[in-house]
């Protein structure tokens, strides 16, 4: 690894308004290969909006987002660099697990679709349920399938929006293993969560967002308790 790496995510002067409500104001953020960024902040701080802007789903009112030096909103082909796990699972309940992944693989223009889909189902522990309709899968299984969907195309950056909500212990462990694995391969991860404990040991950096502004951007403190005390201080200020 070189000491100076090109950033995977480079957001500059991001501002997003919904009508007259300002969700983000002038956010600058760069994320490099191998980083796991924990995004913390109270409800309505703009965390989800920030992830959606980076994923190219929401148009920033001002500012630009570059992913590996490409602007997703100008160049749809560059979108494959992003994997996004939303708090909704983005799956079709009337399709089977296999069909859902196959559709995602086709949209991403992947080759060897069937083999990739099989591998992903295997990694998610869903080989037995591959031909079951998603609508009748358990919540945990759907969540695992959703993770498989988000990472199927091997994105350079993985954006996670509340990934641990409602996840059973086994699925949460699977997700953590996956993240550790991603980092090993030089990917970047950004994670919004209300349960920082779930990902604390993996995180390398913590960003605190409040009312659309970056309040703190620091390397992960060793102890979660220290951070939580600091977090409360920041929000009170």
């Amino acid at each position: 690894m070189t000491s100076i790496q090109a950033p995977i995510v480079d957001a500059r002067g991001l501002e997003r308004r919904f009508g007259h409500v300002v969700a983000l104001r002038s956010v600058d953020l760069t994320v490099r290969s191998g980083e796991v960024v924990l995004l913390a902040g109270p409800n309505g701080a703009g965390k989800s909006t920030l992830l959606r802007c980076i994923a190219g789903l929401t148009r920033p009112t001002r500012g630009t987002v570059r992913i590996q030096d490409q602007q997703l909103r100008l160049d749809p082909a560059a979108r494959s660099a992003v994997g996004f796990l939303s708090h909704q699972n983005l799956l079709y309940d009337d399709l089977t697990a296999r069909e859902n992944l196959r559709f995602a693989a086709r949209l991403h223009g992947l080759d060897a679709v069937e083999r990739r889909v099989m591998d992903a189902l295997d990694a998610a522990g869903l080989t037995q349920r591959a031909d079951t309709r998603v609508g009748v899968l358990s919540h945990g299984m759907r969540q695992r399938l959703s993770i498989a969907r988000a990472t199927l195309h091997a994105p350079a950056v993985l954006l996670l929006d509340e990934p641990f909500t409602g996840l059973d212990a086994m699925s949460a462990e699977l997700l953590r293993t996956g993240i550790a694995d991603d980092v090993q391969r030089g990917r970047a991860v950004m994670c919004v969560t209300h349960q920082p404990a779930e990902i604390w040991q993996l995180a390398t950096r913590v960003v605190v967002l409040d009312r659309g502004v970056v309040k703190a951007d620091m390397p992960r403190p060793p102890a979660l308790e220290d951070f939580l005390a600091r977090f409360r201080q920041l929000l009170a200020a």
Partner: protein
Amino acid sequence: MTPEFDAIDRIMRRGRAIMLAGLLAVAGIYVVALRYTPPEAHQGLAFKIIYVHAPAAWAMEMAFVLVGVVGALYFWLRDPRLDVFGEASATVGMVFGTVLLTTGPIWGRTIWGAWWAWDPRLTFTLLLYLLFAGYFALRSALRDPVERARFGAVIGIMGTVLVPFIHLTVYLFNSQHPLPVLGRPPCPPDKPGCEPSLPWVLLKPLLLSFGAFTMLYVGFVMTRYGIGLRDAATEARDAE
């Protein structure tokens, strides 16, 4: 009061002045039309309704075409004020449409003996009116002003392209609307069936009333535009 609100107030004040002048002009034209001009040769007194009907049609079409024009501009410039103007123009278009759709049947009842004869121009007006009713229905169901602006612009552009097709449809369907009274060729003296061009004494108030309705359009839109700007500015201030 901030400078922003002051500027909006100025727009509204000017709008109200123009509106008032327009209303006075229409009233004046009617005094002239009812008191000092002779009844028209074929239609008699019913003809007088033309002084609101024809210019209202002109104002409505202008209003709706401008919604399409600012819609196209919106996708280029993305200025939220364009949408405020589009909404103002559509609202005023609906007002003139209402004038058309009430005066039309009143006149039709006298001349054709039927309130509604599926005459192309009135039917055209009704279809446009319904199209813009959909425009307002969609807008009222959306919360995000940016989305409202984008969707409003899409409908404005779609509507503008639909206009020639509606024109074609209603004309192919049925036609008994009197020919436009302007620019008709003069009658040769030996052709008895030919309808002459409008005599100057009747034409003059009509031309003046086109001017008066244009003023009314400008006045109404400026006032409504000001209201829209003020609402947006108030909301922005409250959101801070």
